[in-house]
């Protein structure tokens, strides 16, 4: 039976207005509205048209209600620059991600969530220290932020939004933390984004994280302190120069700009020195990218899940089919995060048959 909520989801995911979809399908805009409201039931031909225009299989529209995400409880990064359409598209990706997550968890045991609720903590720096202590990280740098999050039970998905407006978002669902990351940014920016989302997950778990400047500032301060612990930075950085900023940032796997900002906050770079450092970094291309950057982090869990499924002869097409999802959506959710090498060798040496 046709599920009107799935039509809304697919339309939002494709960032189409009802009018645009109507034009593409040759239907009236009112018809689309009535179909989404559930007042009309479409015939087979109409469903085919909708399926073709939206690029979602017919079976997708016949499935159960999609997983709703409470938009008020979602923490978005760079929300202010985001249009409503971009926001809806990202939320829809979150809904599809939940569907995929349930599918995977029915087949695999994943690490249990092990985060602290630090919503009582008013100082993000102290919250970062508390979480580091709880996880036994001490003052040392984190070698792989995504692997750390996955080890502590965070469910990670990629966000295939080819736009800088949506950096990342996160939310809690059934006491499980979910993070969606944009893969079109530099490796350092993605690491920072994931720490920022971690900040939202622990600092704003029970609050209403609707985008407020203070919540963003808190998450940023948390990310900065979590990735670059004050004592470790102070013990290692002496008289920072533009050259040492560019070499030392590698220890904490952060962008040059983020590192310079941290040095300024810790009093290791004066205001004047910080400003001139930022100008120089900008001239060298570090404002828009990371010319000498690190390798992108990938998800270890997705790699393992996909390798295991592949060894059982389950391909990404099979996964997409069982979820009634188009392949591009599935790939958007995980493939960028899992990295290119997810296909293990199957079987062993060839044997002669006598």
């Amino acid at each position, binding site marked *: 039976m046709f599920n009107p909520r799935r039509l809304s989801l697919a339309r939002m995911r494709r960032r189409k207005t009802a009018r645009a979809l109507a034009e593409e399908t040759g239907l009236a805009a009112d018809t689309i509205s009535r179909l989404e409201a559930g007042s009309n039931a479409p015939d087979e031909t109409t469903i085919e048209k909708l399926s073709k225009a939206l690029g979602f299989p017919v079976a997708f529209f016949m499935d159960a209600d999609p997983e709703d995400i409470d938009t008020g409880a979602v923490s978005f990064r760079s929300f202010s620059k985001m249009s409503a359409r971009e926001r809806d598209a990202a939320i829809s990706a979150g809904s599809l991600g939940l569907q995929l997550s349930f599918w995977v968890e*029915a087949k*695999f*045991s994943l690490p249990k969530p*092990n985060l602290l609720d630090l919503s009582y903590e008013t100082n993000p720096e102290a919250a970062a220290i508390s979480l580091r202590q709880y996880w036994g990280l001490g003052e040392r740098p984190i*070698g792989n932020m995504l692997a750390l999050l996955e*080890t502590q039970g965070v469910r990670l998905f990629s966000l295939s939004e080819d736009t800088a407006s949506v950096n990342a978002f996160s939310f809690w669902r059934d006491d499980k933390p979910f993070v969606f990351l944009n893969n079109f940014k530099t490796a350092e920016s993605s690491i920072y984004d994931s720490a920022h989302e971690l900040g939202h997950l622990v600092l704003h778990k029970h609050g209403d994280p609707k985008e407020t400047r203070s919540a963003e500032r808190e998450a940023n301060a948390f990310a900065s302190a979590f990735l670059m612990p004050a*004592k470790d930075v102070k013990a290692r950085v002496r008289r920072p120069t533009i050259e040492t900023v560019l070499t030392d940032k590698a220890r904490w*796997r952060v962008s040059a700009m983020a590192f310079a900002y941290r040095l300024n906050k810790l009093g290791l770079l004066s205001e004047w020195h910080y400003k001139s450092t930022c100008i120089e970094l900008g001239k060298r291309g570090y404002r828009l990218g990371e010319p000498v950057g690190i390798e992108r982090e990938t998800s270890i869990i997705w790699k393992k899940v996909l390798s295991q499924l592949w060894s059982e002869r389950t391909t990404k097409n099979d996964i997409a089919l069982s979820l009634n999802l188009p392949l591009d959506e599935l790939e958007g959710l995980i493939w960028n995060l899992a990295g290119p090498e997810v296909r293990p060798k199957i079987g062993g040496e060839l044997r002669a048959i006598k």
Partner: protein
Amino acid sequence: MEFVHTTLLKEPWDVDRRLNAMTLVHSKLLQIRDVAVNEAANATPFHAANAAGTFSYHHGTWALRDQFAGPDWVVDRSEGVEAIRNDKAKIKVAFCNVDLACDEFHIPQPRTKKGAGVERATSGSLFDDLPQIAPKPTGEWQFYYLMVDECGAAELTRPIVKGGTFTDPLERIFLSNGVDDDSGKPLEDTTDTAIEFEPQIARK
């Protein structure tokens, strides 16, 4: 001089039965280990060179008392050894950083030389090391160390102290090899490099 057979317990059911008899709790001992290892990770190059071990010792000792001080166990400082004691069971337990724990082919060595007070407390002897038997302790108290190494491996061991180090463990109870399967806790890197993680999954 009488001798006794040494024992090594490493199977979970043996370990838990023995710990119950000693009124100790496996999970609490591992929590003490966690506190000690976590605190050691706070050392930076600005701290003194021995800071990691010092942090671990002080907080390990604190956690030992924090976990167990109560009706059965009380703080004990006799012979200058920071420990807890159970008057009824005549057992004392102290915390110690060691080089390597839970390796049955290696006697854990303390990372700081032990003093005469500990030697007396553990009822030392003049005999050389023996593999399967050890000198029977003469004192009425059984003195155990919660031994934790840098990788988080932990054992509860009743050593003999001689010449400032451990010899002839009378009893060794292996608590954890540093990888606690169900804790989800990452393995600690012992060097000053970045910490890496390896999340685990299992097919249902």
